[in-house]
């Protein structure tokens, strides 16, 4: 029973931040600068999601995640499909785990 209350509590506080913009965004007319800020969010968010998190996938081995991220970066520069970028990063990490770490 206790765990059920915990799960429901977590569900509520997780949904609220996701839901709030759906409720109020279109009721407000935003100025031009706000639109520019909104447009920039994906780039700011992905930057912050990638780094330094990519170094922490294996806490004692920051170079392992960094190497995987670097592999993804190189493959992305080649304009490969997103699945290939992911598989490339995964492959590099598995190879490094097998032979070096």
């Amino acid at each position: 029973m206790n765990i059920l209350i915990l799960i429901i509590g977590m569900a509520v506080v997780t949904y609220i931040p996701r839901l709030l913009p759906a409720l109020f965004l279109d009721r407000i007319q935003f100025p031009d600068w706000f639109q520019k800020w909104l447009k920039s969010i994906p780039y700011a968010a992905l930057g912050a999601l990638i780094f330094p998190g990519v170094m922490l996938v294996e806490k004692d081995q920051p170079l392992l995640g960094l190497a995987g991220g670097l592999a993804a970066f190189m493959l992305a520069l080649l304009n490969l499909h997103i699945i290939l970028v992911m598989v490339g990063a995964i492959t590099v990490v598995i190879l490094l785990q097998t032979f070096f770490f």
Partner: protein
Amino acid sequence: MRTDSEIIRGFKAGLPIALGYIPIAIAFGALAAEAQISWYEGTLMSIIVYAGASQFVGVSMLLVGAGSMQIITTTLFLNMRHLIMSLAVNDRMRDFPQSWKNLLSFGITDETFALLTLGTAGEDTGADLTPLYMAGLTGTAYLSWVIGTAVGGLGANLIPVNITTAMTVGLYGLFIGLLVPPARKSISYTVIALVSMALNSLLGLFLDFGWAIVLAMIMAAGLGIFLIREDS
């Protein structure tokens, strides 16, 4: 715009996320089992909470004996970044019926947000996101997370830790693969992303993950106000 192909297109676009989510969800299901959470409670958590980082942190806190209020408060702070992400996604859903907005907003995760805002349906084709396309994309991610959790909870840990680590790097590959192509075309966006990385690293020295990432996002995106020209 045929409706049947919209949802299939969304489903296909969501497959990279499913690839990353399934092994991690299995690992989560196994961790929940370790914390004496039954497989259906663990799966229920994935069904109604649906937030990977929060679920891992929540169950890990449970394992070390944290109280419910403490876990719920941590979850709230950890998820503040979704408020900012939801702003950007809802900006693309302005014409949707309210019930669609409410439903699709539930499906916003770091990964679905990244695909919805920078994936090919967005910038490259110039096409608008449609409710069914978004339902297909977020639904694929959601189902893979829920099913993966059930599998992990029932079958204990089928997947070695090494593979889970590698698949986590795969999700970083998803972020990197989505960020690089548009950033290459715009020095402004490149600067914003790099500044955000630097800010997040710096703020992470003083603040919890949840706050550091939110502040880095807000401040780095603020640069866009000065860097982006009117017409772009």
